[in-house]
């Protein structure tokens, strides 16, 4: 499924340079925005502040500058990821970056041709900054806490996706060897970050 979609998409788009700067990515229109905002009502003491839908991610340390799309769970209860190597997926059933809890963004480490948007994610170090710009053009900065790689099937899903008191954002990508017969990389990399206050 994933592969087919990717191929179809490639025929429509010609963007191929992944880690290129703003000029190339800023031209890409984010098409799928199946969002329903719940945050319209005035809030007095809400559990989380106004946090909008994330639209763009910048990671200066590794020259990432990419659009963010909202994705859901598929029928197998798996997180849908972009069908291309340029976009980053935000797990929309979870939290928005900046709100209390674990927001989750996922991007490919490589596509069929070579490096993709999160290829250099493993080079991040604690203290590096990640900027998320939301639908209201508000930019929030997150700071890397730690990087962890987990063998496939052994990642602590609740720690990555589950309830959390702080305002966290976790970036996911693949790492380790690509196992062609399994059609996936053998490890998953999680970059844990916290909102800069």
């Amino acid at each position, binding site marked *: 499924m*994933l592969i087919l979609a990717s191929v179809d998409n490639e025929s429509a788009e010609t963007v191929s340079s992944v880690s290129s700067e703003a000029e190339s990515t800023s031209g890409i229109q984010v098409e799928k925005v199946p969002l329903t905002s719940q945050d319209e009502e005035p809030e007095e003491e809400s559990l989380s502040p106004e946090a909008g839908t994330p639209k763009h991610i910048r990671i200066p340390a590794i020259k990432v500058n990419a659009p963010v799309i909202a994705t859901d769970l598929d029928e197998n209860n798996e997180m849908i990821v972009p069908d291309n190597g340029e976009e980053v997926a935000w797990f929309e059933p979870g939290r928005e970056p900046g709100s209390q809890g674990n927001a989750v963004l996922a991007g490919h480490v490589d596509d069929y041709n070579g490096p993709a948007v999160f290829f250099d994610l493993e080079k991040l170090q604690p203290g590096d900054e990640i900027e998320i710009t939301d639908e209201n053009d508000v930019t929030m900065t997150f700071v890397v806490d730690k990087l962890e790689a987990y063998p496939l099937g052994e990642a602590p899903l609740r720690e990555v996706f589950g309830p959390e008191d702080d305002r966290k954002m976790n970036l996911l990508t693949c790492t380790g060897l690509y196992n062609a017969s399994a059609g996936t990389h053998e490890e998953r990399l999680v970059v844990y970050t916290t909102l800069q206050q």
Partner: protein
Amino acid sequence: MKKVFALFVTVVLLSSVFALEAFADNHGSDEAMVRIAHASPDAPAVDVYVNGEAVVEGAAFKDATDYLNLPAGDHEVAIYPADANGEGDPVISTTLTIEAGMAYTVAAVGMLENLALEVATDSMEVSDGMTKVRVGHLSPDAPTVDVGLIGGDALFSGASFPAITDYQELEAGTYDLEIRTEDGTQVLDLSGTTLEANTVYSVFAVNTADNLEAWVLTDYTAMPSEMPQTGMGGAQSGMNTMLMTGLGAMLAGVLLAGFAFNRRRSHQS
């Protein structure tokens, strides 16, 4: 053209089947999740032992552990004062029987002299886009209460210490709630309580009646069944490793052919 395409689809389907078999997550199937909550207003910081081993140290009033994964079956849960080092008699202990795939909250409730362990079964699912909430009356000397909309209907009626209600599924959003006695007198204002979509909450009324407060625990937020697949293999130079894996060799070859074919098409368009 059609043929290549069909073959391509088959390859993709096959490889996803292999992926599932090769990497099926097989732990967790015989386990249950247990968290322990300290809801006794006057009890000291405590250590929690499960089957004789310390799993939590120095938990104070209104501390809750993360969920611990424990094998299904019987477990001895014992609570010791934090300064006792697990020696001597526990403040309280109980045998907890848990079932695989279930989640539980074990709450230490009541004043220290009447400390009890209250066990509730937690929900780890919620309908898409909805929110789910339950309440616990864990205030030892507070009267029987309702929890409902200010000036509106009760969502939970007739809760008395130490009851933990069933969950109710609601539209996500912000609610003006209150805890009130059965005659309608407000005992705690919970205006502006935001209940997020795809989230399960436990709201425990804790502390003594004079100092009643709401303690909100998040039981569950939406999560996938496994980590997403975030790579397609194109940056790996070791194409040989692919080709050596028997059946994989055939599949990979066809896959590459299919891809090259589609690439060409895309360049023309």
